[in-house]
């Protein structure tokens, strides 16, 4: 995935391979600019110029999404892969009632239903995300942030997708409401038997929600492990530092930031992109890019020191 700009082409995500298992909750974490949102947009083929997907394939069951026509892809979105974008509660149309927004999605994907059926379906959907049937007749401004976010989840699941991608779905919500929204997402995922990709930089939320976690740095996946392993015994030095920066309620007053800054994508360091910030870097890290390999059963990382 490259962005072509006047200053030259920038690689936002390179050579990332992921396999999403059915029923799985996968996390994708990294600092801003690490390429996690780019990955998600690439999977959905929603990259806009000057961005361009330069290669690779995305398989959904036995369908290669990269070979579909624009119209076919449009039908796949929502129906088979649904996205809950960042700040999605602000993506609701302010002048349409919630039920009409849900109906819109259904109609657009060729689900032609009678009016009565539609009402029933809207009610069921709202109920499955824990909203009262009365919400159907409301406008977005009449709902709280958490309710709007759940209405968005209702739209996302309206066609029973196989994969739900949630990009920082709760970043603007309070902790209590955040928990309710994540509980809702967990429940509908179980009900549908769908898989979820949760993108974000809130490691706490990720720790509590996902089964496996991929950590991205400078457009590449540097580690992909079961979430327990990541927090108990991370493989990659970057992951280790990322986990160490998190505030906990046990240790007090230890502030450990990651020194240095993420590299500019236009000027990536040679070898391992993390080496300028890595406390363990050796000569080899400066010259040779580490391969992404399985260091422990089920746990993958790209680091020479493993």
């Amino acid at each position, binding site marked *: 995935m490259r962005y072509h700009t006047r200053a030259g082409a920038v690689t936002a995500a390179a050579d990332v391979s992921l396999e999403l298992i059915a029923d799985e909750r996968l996390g994708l974490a990294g*600092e*801003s*600019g690490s390429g996690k949102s780019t990955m998600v947009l690439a999977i959905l083929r929603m990259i806009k110029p000057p961005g361009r997907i330069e290669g690779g394939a995305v398989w959904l069951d036995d369908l290669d999404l990269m070979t579909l026509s624009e119209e076919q892809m449009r039908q796949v979105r929502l129906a088979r892969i649904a996205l809950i974008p960042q700040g999605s509660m602000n993506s609701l149309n302010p002048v349409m009632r919630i039920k009409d927004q849900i109906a819109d999605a259904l109609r657009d994907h060729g689900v032609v239903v009678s009016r009565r059926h539609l009402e029933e379906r809207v009610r069921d959907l709202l109920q499955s995300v*824990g909203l*009262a049937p009365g919400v159907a007749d409301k406008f977005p401004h009449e709902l*709280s*942030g*958490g*309710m709007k976010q*759940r209405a968005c989840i209702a739209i996302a699941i309206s066609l029973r997708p196989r994969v739900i991608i949630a990009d920082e779905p709760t970043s603007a919500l*309070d*902790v*209590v*409401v*955040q*928990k*309710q929204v*994540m*509980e*809702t*997402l*967990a*429940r509908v995922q179980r009900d549908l038997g769908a898989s979820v990709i949760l993108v974000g*930089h*809130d*490691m*706490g*939320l*990720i*720790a*509590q*929600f996902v089964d496996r976690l991929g950590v991205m740095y400078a457009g590449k996946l540097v580690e992909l492990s079961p979430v*327990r392993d990541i*927090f*108990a015994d991370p493989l990659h030095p970057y992951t280790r*530092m*990322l*986990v160490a*920066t*998190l*505030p*906990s*309620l046990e240790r*007090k*007053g230890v*502030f*450990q*930031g*990651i020194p240095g*800054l*993420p590299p500019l994508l236009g000027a990536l360091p040679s070898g391992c992109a993390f080496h300028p910030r890595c406390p363990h870097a050796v000569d080899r890290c400066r010259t040779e890019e580490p391969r992404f390999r399985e260091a422990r059963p089920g746990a993958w990382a790209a680091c020479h020191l493993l």
Partner: protein
Amino acid sequence: MAALLEARRVSKVFGGRMFARSSTVALEDFSLTVEGDRPSITAVVGESGSGKTTLGRLLLGLLTPTSGQVSYAGQDLQTMSSTDWTSFRRDVQVIFQDPYEVYNPFYRVDHVLTTPVSKFKLAASKAGGRALIEDALEAVGLRPEETLGRFPHQLSGGQRQRVMVARALLLRPRLIVADEPVSMVDASLRATILGSLRKMNEELGISIIYITHDLATAYQISDNVVVLYRGAVAEAGDVELVVKHPRHPYTQLLIASIPLASTERTWTTDGVAASAGLPDPGRSGCTFAARCPSATAPCRQAAPPLFQTDRHRAVSCYLHQSAPPLDGAEMDKVLSHRGG
């Protein structure tokens, strides 16, 4: 014990008079004192709509209290002379939440640093001012040569927020009000920014009021914490007591909702989602009663006063009414002091 900044029985009502149906009580009968001689870090924690930002603005003199007063070094902010106001504006600095909005995109970032230097005549010469700015940037972990001369869009959010911390530092303030300073910054940079706040407190004796929705970071840096719920204090006191052994049902709910970054799954996402739709509590009774699992009839009739449950903690909840009641204006008596 000279009070540096003192809020006494401050209330703020938006829209209409108090008790009018259309009005919103953003903050009710709030008192807090920041001591001049003992630098402290006090966290104000609450969800959106709890009144925490209103409180910050009242303390900065950006809003006029509906009742009560905020005073700085004994002078009421609303009636102080313009010389006092100038020194207040120098001694009390603010760091806002959004490091993207506070910059004018047409100016280089130097602008936010050189303006206070010239406005408050901090340096005799241009070179002297430059040296001050460079020191302040280095104190927050930025390299001046990589920061100065750039436009805001050329810096990351974390860098921009650190420039704002440097700007606050430049004026050698006595108090910094930081309103959600790290909520829009990447997790890996939060620790760095909070670390520099803590360092400023310890090494330069600057008191900090840290306004946040995040109890985990509040726990990390503060000595005391005030938990606000819908404009009223739910629980206040020593951070160890409040976070480790919360007594107010709301504080308990908040702590149970924090997703902890650990291998232990303390969060159950398997429960049935509770209702987020809240009826307006009206102005009588406990503001939390509608959501409280332990609410009883008295809770709906009159708001509970503060009860001092421990030496360093007060809770506004009838569950603790066996403890001695504490007048709201004396809430700061329970706040603990480092080494005191």
